[in-house]
C-alpha cells in the first residue's frame, strides 16, 4: 500500500439518522483531494449503503456501534472501512448477489451492487455473530495535484 497521507476515525451509534451524518463526514474529509462532483457523489452513496447495511442488518434487533475509518493514500486513493460487531453474514457471496435481500418489501437488495459499481474495489469479511467489515477504495482523479500532501 502507498504512503498514508491522512485519516479519520469515526464511531457512532447505529441510528438511521446517522446515515446522512456518515456520508457527509466522509465527503467533507475527502474534499481536501478536490474530487469531482461525480467522485464525491459516488463515495457518499457507497458510504450510505455500507452504513445502512449495519443499521438494517448487523444491528437489526439492537442498537450497536458502527466504526468508520477513512484513509487517504499518496496518489489519491481513498480507502473506507465500515465495521460493525453485529450479527455477521452467513453467506457473503449470496449477500452480495444483486437483488438478494433478507428483508423483502422495501429493500432492493442492491447495497453491495452499488458499492461495487461506485467504488474501484470492495472487500467484505464477516463471521456470524462476530460482525462485518466492508473495505472499499477508489482512486480519485486529482485534478489539482496531490493536495493532501501540503496539509
Amino acid at each position, binding site marked *: 500500500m502507498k504512503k498514508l497521507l491522512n485519516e479519520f476515525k469515526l464511531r457512532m451509534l447505529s441510528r*438511521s*439518522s446517522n*446515515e*446522512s451524518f456518515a*456520508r457527509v463526514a466522509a465527503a467533507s474529509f475527502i474534499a481536501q483531494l478536490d474530487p469531482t462532483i*461525480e467522485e464525491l*457523489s*459516488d463515495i*457518499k*452513496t457507497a458510504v*450510505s*449503503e455500507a452504513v*445502512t447495511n449495519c*443499521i*438494517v442488518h448487523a444491528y437489526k434487533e439492537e442498537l450497536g456501534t458502527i466504526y468508520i475509518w477513512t484513509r487517504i493514500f499518496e496518489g489519491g486513493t481513498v480507502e473506507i472501512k465500515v465495521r460493525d460487531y453485529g450479527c455477521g453474514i452467513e453467506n457473503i457471496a449470496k449477500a452480495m448477489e*444483486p437483488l438478494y435481500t433478507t428483508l423483502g*418489501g*422495501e*429493500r*432492493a437488495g*442492491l*447495497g453491495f*451492487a*452499488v458499492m461495487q*459499481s*461506485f467504488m474501484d474495489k470492495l472487500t467484505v469479511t464477516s463471521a456470524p455473530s462476530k460482525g462485518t467489515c466492508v473495505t472499499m477504495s477508489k482512486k480519485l482523479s486529482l485534478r489539482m495535484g496531490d493536495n493532501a500532501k501540503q496539509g
Partner: protein
Amino acid sequence: MSVRIENKGDVVTAYLEGELDHHNAKAIREDVDAALDRHSPGLLVLDFREITFMDSSGIGLVMGRYKKLQGTGAQIHITGTSPPIYKVMQIAGLSKLANIDKGGKTLEKTAE
C-alpha cells in the same frame, strides 16, 4: 425530506424533495401509498427534480410501488433524475419497471 402529492384526473404525482435514504424512505413511502390507496390512479409520477441525494433506498421505493401497483394496470413514470440519481437507477435496471426521463419535460405533458 418531504413529499408533496398532487392528484389530477387519473394521475398521482409525488414531488420528492431532499435526501432519499433508508432513514427518510419510510415517511415518503407511507405518504405515497396513502395517495395510491385514496385515488387508485392509472399513472404514478415520481418527480425526482428536488432530490439532492439518493442511495438504493430510492430503488426500493420505486420497486415497492411497482409491486403495489402490479395487477392494477397502473404505470409508473420517473422524471427529473439528475445524473447521480440516474446512475443509481441504472444499477437496478429500473427502466424495465418504469419509464424514466431525465429532463422532466414529459411530466407536464402527462399531467395535463
